[in-house]
């Protein structure tokens, strides 16, 4: 009996030894656990996209258990009374069933849709962060290209998913997609006919989109995301300049345990926000749209937000049709330019941007330190121009809703969009450029003369001047000012940032408890315990 008794506490250790005997993972595992990640809120934006993709996979798998990707005609007999007896496709009927006759199906469907919107929104926001901070520069061009591709593949994933329920809105979207394919010169009718298996809408498009939506596109997304993350891992994350931070190191936290805990917690937060959205905000009420019928359309028919810019460009396009008088005559319809040529240009420009910029600046160095947007005014201004372009197009994609709700003429909205598309981006460029220069200027001023203290002093000759607190000790200049060099990081511009009003107050929304009783790290002298909490904004000096 005694032989059977074993030391329970030693079991994990023994198991670990057993695993390492077989796989020799101890050292690589340690390297993984020890990897250092820099900490900044803007580095978490990409994670939002990653985590919503995980939620997309989870909810999407649930939906496939109930969705039937077929266009065979059935008569609806489910529990939603206002559609009972209506002939519709099996795809639409099963989408209704999974909304009304599957317990919790509606919340899953809505979570899936919201996480799709969040996925795309987070990609865009993350991309803006990477762009404006110059994180795409060598050696990370590949990852920038993969990131832009992720946007376009996500775009396809979203569009195929939007089309699957075969409701009135998604059918209209498919109809427009078929018209876009038709508009391609020479091969348009062949492309449409091949994709739809004959004349629109045919009977096979839903099953083709289904397999693309649940297998091909997610497979591609998983592959791209894996490479994207692998490269971030291999090339190590960029970091902001700052004390001790160089192009050759990473300053931050080791991955385990604190960083990993934060990531895990953030995943739960993203998941939770999606669940709240999915439950509390109704999205895509397909039961109100009715089945797709070629003769039915609703006012305010729009695609999801990330496709809306193409809808906007289509609405703004003037009716310029090109006729080619050869033989029977050939046509390039106006639809071709805003829906095929424009996205083509955008894909090319967005993926090639890192190379264009490097070529323009003749920059062949590797960069691991980020740049503040103000320090690269040309790039920041180009980015602002692109954002302005995108926003004008997206707003134009909803111009009928805006016209109706704000009682503006629809035709005036279209003209405003046409003119705005030409005027607003250059304006954005100019304004942003000037703003950047102004901010730079102010940084240099503070470095040269110090922080404004708000103390006004009257000089003997009667003039009033504001006292500036120099940032560095006098280095022999006659005026007592020491000129500091700008290092690409935040310049303190308020006195309390300098510690003049006591240490920066801890806490996010309100100050939290006093500091720890005793410091542990050598080299950190004991801090005097402050008596109690104080609200932010008590201007009183505590020293």
């Amino acid at each position, binding site marked *: 009996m005694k032989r059977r008794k074993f030391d329970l506490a030693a079991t994990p250790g023994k198991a670990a030894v057993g695993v390492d005997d077989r796989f020799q993972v101890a050292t690589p595992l340690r390297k993984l656990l*020890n990897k*250092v990640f820099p900490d900044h809120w803007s580095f978490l934006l990409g994670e939002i996209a990653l985590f919503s993709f995980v939620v997309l996979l989870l909810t999407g798998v649930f939906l496939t258990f109930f969705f039937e990707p077929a266009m065979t005609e059935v008569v609806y007999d489910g529990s*939603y009374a*206002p559609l009972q007896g209506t002939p519709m496709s099996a795809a639409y009927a099963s989408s209704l069933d999974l909304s009304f006759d599957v317990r919790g199906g*509606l919340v899953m469907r809505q979570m899936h849709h919201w996480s799709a919107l969040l996925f795309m929104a987070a990609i865009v926001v993350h991309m803006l962060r990477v762009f404006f901070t110059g994180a795409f520069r060598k050696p990370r061009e590949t990852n920038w290209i993969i990131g832009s591709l992720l946007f376009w593949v996500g775009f396809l994933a979203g569009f195929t998913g939007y089309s699957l329920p075969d409701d009135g809105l998604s059918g209209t979207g498919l109809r*427009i997609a*078929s018209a876009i394919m*038709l508009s391609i010169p020479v091969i348009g*009718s*062949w492309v*449409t*006919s091949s*994709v739809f*298996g*004959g*004349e*629109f809408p045919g009977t096979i498009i839903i099953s083709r989109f289904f397999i693309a939506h649940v297998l091909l596109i997610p497979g591609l997304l998983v592959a791209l995301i894996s490479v994207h993350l692998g490269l971030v891992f291999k090339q*190590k994350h960029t970091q902001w300049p700052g004390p001790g931070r*160089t192009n*050759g*190191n990473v*300053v931050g*936290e*080791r991955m385990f*345990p*604190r960083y990993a805990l*934060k990531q895990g*917690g*953030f995943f739960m937060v993203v*998941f*939770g926000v999606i669940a*709240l*959205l999915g*439950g509390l905000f109704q999205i895509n009420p397909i039961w109100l749209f009715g089945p797709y019928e*070629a*003769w039915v*359309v609703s*006012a305010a*028919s729009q695609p999801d937000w990330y496709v809306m810019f193409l*809808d906007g460009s*289509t*609405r*703004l*396009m*003037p*009716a310029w*049709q090109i006729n080619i008088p050869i033989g029977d005559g050939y*046509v390039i*319809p*106006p*639809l071709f330019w805003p829906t095929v040529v424009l996205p083509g240009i955008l894909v090319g420009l967005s993926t090639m941007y890192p190379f264009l910029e490097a070529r323009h600046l003749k920059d062949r160095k590797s960069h691991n330190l980020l740049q503040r947007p103000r320090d690269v005014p040309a790039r920041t201004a180009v980015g602002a121009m692109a954002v302005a372009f995108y926003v004008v197009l997206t707003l134009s994609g909803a111009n*009928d809703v805006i016209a109706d709700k704000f009682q503006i003429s*629809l*035709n005036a909205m*279209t003209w405003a969009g046409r003119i705005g598309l030409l005027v607003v981006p250059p304006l954005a460029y100019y304004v942003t450029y000037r703003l950047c220069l102004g901010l730079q200027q102010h940084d240099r001023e503070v470095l040269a003369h110090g922080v404004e203290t708000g103390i006004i002093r009257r000089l003997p000759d009667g003039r009033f001047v504001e006292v500036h607190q120099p940032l560095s000790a006098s280095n022999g200049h006659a005026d007592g000012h020491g000129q500091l060099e700008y290092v690409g990081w935040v310049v303190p511009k308020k006195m309390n940032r300098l510690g003049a009003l006591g240490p920066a107050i801890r806490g996010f929304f309100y100050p939290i*408890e006093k500091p*720890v*009783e005793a410091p*542990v*790290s050598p080299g950190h002298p004991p801090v005097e315990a402050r008596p109690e909490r104080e609200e932010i904004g008590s201007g009183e000096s505590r020293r």
Partner: protein
Amino acid sequence: MSTHTEHQAPQGREPLDVNDPTLTRFDIVREGARRDDIEIVHYEPQVLPGTKAERRLTRVVAGFFLITGLAATAFLAIYIWWPWQYEPGRGGDKFYTPLLGATLGVALLAVGFGILTWGKKLLPKEVSIQDRHEGVVDAEGRTITGQTMLYLADELGVKRRPLLGISLLAGLAPVAAVAAAPLVGGLISQPHKNNQMFTTGFGAAEGGERIRLVREDGRPIRPADVSAGGQITVFPGIEEGVSNKHADSPTLLIHLRSSDAEQSRRANERIGHGDYMWGDYAAFSKICTHAGCPASLYEQQTNRLLCPCHQSQFLITDNARPVFGPASRRLPQLPIEVDSEGFFVAKSDYTETVGPDFWERP
């Protein structure tokens, strides 16, 4: 290249003996980090064991996890017992989905914030510095790998034996085509089968029989069915005429006011469509020539037809000419008349191509 680091650690230091019993566990952790070129330069517990602060934070984290438990239990209870089958106007059942989402969201947010508080407040703060080895190129390794590659090429001897290369290409190219052929060949579909892009359901009759205009429930239409200033969506009165199978056939039959009808007739005559209208009735394709949406927002006073997808506007009294927006081609008109039984019929199929434009539209 840049070997500049901020380490306080001596560069050529001796590795520690990790079996030394005097070392603490943290010493070993730090030694491990050093072997990965990581220097832990700052390590500071945020709360000390046994302090009030620690107890308080522990309670906060535990509280979060308890909220998760409660919310998750509430989710399950609602999932099982709340009336879930939605029926418009009944009441409580419309809160089923919001309640599920809210409880699930609260559960997940609480577990998230619990973990975050744990990691952010209870774990020691640290600053570590890791060397990137950026630009430290292993030149020798590059040379060896490069030579290995070249040696491989030599071994294969494609350069010396060009026939191998050519025959390989000649042999494999068709294999690639074989892989692509079923995909391309299977998908490709002739767009002009039965002239389908140029015909609609209104031209489907055999033996010269004219196709009736019918409503969505299949009933034919008399002139008296549509009041002046009214419009009705009509379909070809054929098998499956009212279905997506004839997605390009839906047509808008408009009963114009007499003065507008007069204007329309004159416009019709200008382009040689003098006999397309019947009385004050005109029929235009409902499928927008721009992107194929049903252009069906008929304004009976201005006689404009608006497409809700891209805001193209067509002036009905001028042969449905596009007057605003991205559409570049007028809506085709269906020639109509009334048959001996008093129902509307199409005199013939559309004489222009219906639906969105494409390259080879004559």
